[in-house]
C-alpha cells in the first residue's frame, strides 16, 4: 500500500514538472478558465438576485450547491484527470503501454496526469465562503456546517469519480465515449448544481438512482443547510459513496478483461 502511495506521489510530481515546462500556457489557461467560471456562476446569481428565491431555495443556498459541486468536481478531475480522457488512450493504443507496467492500470492511468485547476478551486472556494458566510450571518447554520461540508465535498468527489470510472469503462466495448460522458458527467453535474426540487420526479429519481450526482451536494445540503433528517445522513452518503465506488471498480475490472486493444 505504501509502495503504491509513494509511486503515485512520484508520478504526480513528475506530471506537474512536465506541465510546468509550458508555464505561459498554464497561466493563460488559468486566467481564461477563471473568466468561464465567473460567467457560469454569474448566470444563476443574476436570476436569483432578480427573483429572490426558487421553490424556497435562496441565492445563498443555491450558491452552496453550486460551490460544493464545483469543488467535488475539481477534486475528481484534478486527481483522476485521465480517467475522463480514456477515449484518447483507447483510440491511440496508449493504454497498451500502461498495461505493460507492474502496477494496477487504474493507478497508472490516474498518475499519468494531474490537472491543476486553480480557477475552479478559487471560484468554488469563493462562492462557498460567500454562501456559508451569508447563511451563518442569517443564523440559518452554525460553524459545524464547515466540517460537514468538507466531508460532503470529499464524498462527492468519490461519487463523481465512480460515475466517471463506470462511464469510462463502457469505452472498453464502445471505444467512443465522449457522447455518453456528456450525459453521465456534464449534463448530470450541471443538473445537480441546482436544487433537485426544481425537476419533475422522473428526472429527480434519475439524478439520485441512475446517476447518483444528487448525493454530491443536494442530499447532504438537506441536513447541513436545513437540518432535515440528521447527522446520520452524511454518514449514509459516505457509505453510499463507498458502495458506488466498489461497483464502479468491479465494472472497470470487468471491462478491462474485455479490452481489445486497437484493431490489428
Amino acid at each position, binding site marked *: 500500500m505504501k509502495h503504491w502511495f509513494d509511486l503515485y506521489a512520484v508520478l504526480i510530481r513528475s506530471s506537474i514538472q512536465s506541465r510546468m515546462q509550458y508555464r505561459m500556457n498554464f497561466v*493563460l*489557461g488559468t486566467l481564461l478558465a477563471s473568466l468561464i467560471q465567473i*460567467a457560469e456562476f*454569474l448566470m444563476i446569481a*443574476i436570476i436569483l438576485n432578480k*427573483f*429572490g428565491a426558487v421553490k424556497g431555495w435562496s441565492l445563498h443556498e443555491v450558491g452552496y450547491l453550486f460551490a460544493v459541486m464545483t469543488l467535488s468536481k475539481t477534486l475528481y478531475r484534478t486527481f483522476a484527470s485521465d480517467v475522463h480522457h480514456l477515449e484518447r488512450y483507447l483510440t491511440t493504443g496508449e493504454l497498451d503501454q500502461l498495461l505493460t507496467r507492474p502496477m494496477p492500470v487504474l493507478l497508472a492511468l490516474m498518475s499519468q496526469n494531474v490537472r491543476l485547476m486553480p480557477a475552479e478551486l478559487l471560484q468554488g472556494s469563493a462562492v462557498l465562503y460567500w454562501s456559508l458566510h451569508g447563511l451563518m450571518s442569517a443564523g440559518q447554520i452554525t460553524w459545524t456546517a464547515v466540517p460537514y461540508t468538507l466531508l460532503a465535498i470529499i464524498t462527492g468527489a468519490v461519487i463523481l469519480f465512480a460515475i466517471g470510472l463506470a462511464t469510462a469503462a463502457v469505452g472498453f466495448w464502445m471505444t467512443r465515449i465522449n457522447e455518453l460522458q456528456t450525459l453521465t458527467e456534464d449534463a448530470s453535474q*450541471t443538473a445537480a448544481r441546482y436544487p433537485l426540487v426544481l425537476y419533475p420526479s422522473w428526472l429527480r429519481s434519475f439524478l439520485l438512482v441512475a446517476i447518483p450526482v444528487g448525493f454530491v451536494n443536494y442530499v447532504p445540503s438537506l441536513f447541513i443547510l436545513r437540518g432535515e433528517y440528521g447527522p446520520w445522513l452524511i454518514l449514509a452518503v459516505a457509505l453510499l459513496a463507498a458502495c458506488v465506488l466498489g461497483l464502479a471498480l468491479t465494472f472497470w475490472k470487468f471491462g478491462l478483461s474485455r479490452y481489445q486493444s486497437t484493431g490489428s
Partner: protein
Amino acid sequence: MLYFTLASKAYARNLHYRGAHMLHNVASALFGYLYACIWIGIGQDHPLGEYGVHGMVGYIAFNQASLWVSGFVSNGLGIPQAVRTGQISLDLMRPVHLFVMCMCREWGQIAYQFVYKSVPIYLLYMLAFKLSLPTRPDTLLFAAVALAAAGYMSICINYMIGATSLWTTESSWLYWVNHALINLLAGFLIPVEWLPSWLQTVGWLSPYPYLLYVPTRIYMGYEQPGILLGSVAWCMLLTLLCLLVTAAVRRKVEVQGG
C-alpha cells in the same frame, strides 16, 4: 460549385456518427430541459414579464435548439489542428481564400447539425412542453434569416479564434471563453433585458445578442424584422475583421517559412 462540394463533404462526414449523435442529443436536450425547469420553478412565485412561464420555456427551448447553429461550431473551424499538423501552409497555397474554404466546410457542418440536432431537439421540446409554431409564415422566414446570420457570425468569431492558434497553443481556451460569453451575453439562459444594466451595455456593444437572443425574439414575435439590420451590420464588420486576420495569418506563416 467547389463551395458546395466542400460543404456537402463536411455534411456527409458526419453521417457516420448519427448513432452517437442521437445519444448526444439526449444530453443536449436535457441541458435545455434543466434550464426550463429553473424558469418553471421561478415562475411559480413570480410573474415572468412579457414572456410568462410558458413563454420562458419556449424561449429556452428555441435557444437550446439554436445553439447547434450559432453556438457549437467546430473549435476554431479546425484551424488549430491544421496548425499543429502543418496542414495550414498547404491550405494557404490553395487557389481558394482560406476564410472562404473554412466557411464552406463549416456551413456543411452547421447544416448537418441543424437537421440532426436542432430539429430533433426542438421537436422533442414541442412535444414535452406543448409548444406551437409561429402562426405567421413571415415570422418563420425572418427567424430563419436571423439564425443564418447568427451562424455566419459564429463562423467568423471561430475563424478568428482559430487564427490565434498560430501565436498560442492554448486557443481551445478561447473557444470555451466564447462559449461562456454566449451563455452570458447572448441571452442563452436569461433574456438580455434582465441582465444588470452594465452587462446589457456590454452585451449590446458585442455581436453576442444577435447569436441567440435576436433570432429567438423574432421567432416568438416580440421583435420587428428591422432589428435584422443589426445582424447585417455585424456580419459585415466581422467579415472585414476576418479578412484582416487572414492577411496577418499569411504573413505569420510566410515568416515561419511554411
